[in-house]
């Protein structure tokens, strides 16, 4: 990223290849549909170009990138709320089980769909925490840097979000 900052913009391509899936998954798991998730990924890289001079090289690049991703997601949903456009969630990706699919796979997909629903029901901040902590595999120190708290507080917050997710998941499972 420092090379990009120093004017070697080509290097942003390398960063994109390395992080595009993580970012896409982050947006997708926050409840955005694939198309919006892709737009948001694009948005993050545009921001990286635009604000490349703000990158100091201190701290993990991932923390800086996900901080930007959070802001992009926040801005997007703020805008859609203002314009009254309903966001289309990844719910549309929940596919109907195909008959010849193995039961195990169907169950896994069902769980996944349920989990997505449970995540959607979680307050936004907690959902974001869980996605960052688990799905993106960030360290707690990086997570703390992104959300702006101590490492210990980040652990406690993830723990409580996880507990809340379980409760919602079980509720959905029961029906």
């Amino acid at each position, binding site marked *: 990223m420092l090379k990009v900052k120093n004017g070697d913009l080509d290097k942003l391509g390398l960063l994109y290849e390395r992080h595009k899936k993580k970012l896409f998954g982050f947006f997708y798991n926050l409840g955005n549909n*694939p198309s919006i998730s892709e737009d948001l990924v*694009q948005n993050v890289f545009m921001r990286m170009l635009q604000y490349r001079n703000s990158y100091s090289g201190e701290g993990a690049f991932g923390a800086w990138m996900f901080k930007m991703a959070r802001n992009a997601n926040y801005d997007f949903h703020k805008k859609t709320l203002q314009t009254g456009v309903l966001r289309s969630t990844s719910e549309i*990706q929940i596919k109907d089980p195909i008959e010849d699919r193995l039961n195990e796979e169907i169950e896994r997909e069902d769980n996944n769909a349920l989990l997505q629903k449970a995540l959607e029901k979680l307050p936004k901040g907690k959902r974001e925490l869980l996605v960052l*902590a688990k799905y993106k595999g960030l*360290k707690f120190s990086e997570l703390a840097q992104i959300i702006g708290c101590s490492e210990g507080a980040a*652990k406690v917050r993830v*723990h409580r979000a996880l*507990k809340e997710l379980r409760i919602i998941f079980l509720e959905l499972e029961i029906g």
Partner: protein
Amino acid sequence: MDKELFEIKAMEHLTGAASAADTALFESFLDKNPEYKEKFSELKRSWTLLGQLDAPQPSAQMDDSFFTMLSNAIQKNKKEESKNMFAGLFGWFKPQFAFGALFLMVGLGVGYFLASNEEKSSNQVVARDKETEAVRQKLILTLLEQPSANQRLQGVGEANKIVAVDEIVIKALLKTLNYDANVNVSLAAVESLTNYVENPLVRQGLVQAIQNQESPIMQITLANLMVALQEKASIEPFKQLLENQELDTTVKKKIKNSIESII
């Protein structure tokens, strides 16, 4: 273990962030506390479930859009760089120019004030110097009148410090040269007067002093001085001096040589 500590330790344990010693301690704690063990198992299940969360692959269209955007950005950047090459030069220098101009103005202002102050002060210095010289001249005259040879020598020494002596001081020095009882004082007066040999009054005084000298050292000193000055007016007084029967033979030889040198 309080609730918050358990929450922290549980997360460290789940994510593998705990050290081996901590892990062992935590597991032993769980074994001793079934209630917490159950809580941790539930948490672990949720964590595992969360791990199953996946996302579809982004489409190739995302790559296309990104690389188009990047390519546009690179081109735009290059254009801006070339466009700003000239403007950038000024852009880069602008603050420096502004500061430079500001400092120049301040410098000129300060310089102007300092220069005018300096002028004033140089005028003051000149005035002060004049006052000092006037005082010094009075001092010289007073010292040359003193009965003590030392004080008269001091007076001649003070005369050497004056850049432009006036007629009064010259006359006082010539008087010392001609009539001072102490040869050392007279010699000092000659030495002092050599500083003003360009002054006709001094040259004339020195020539007239030749006949008044009785001390051989004074006679030789004046002879040397006249040779150095190539003062033709001194030949006649030297000739008259040679007529003096009591004149030292060495002095006689010296004067004869001097006359020859001057001619």
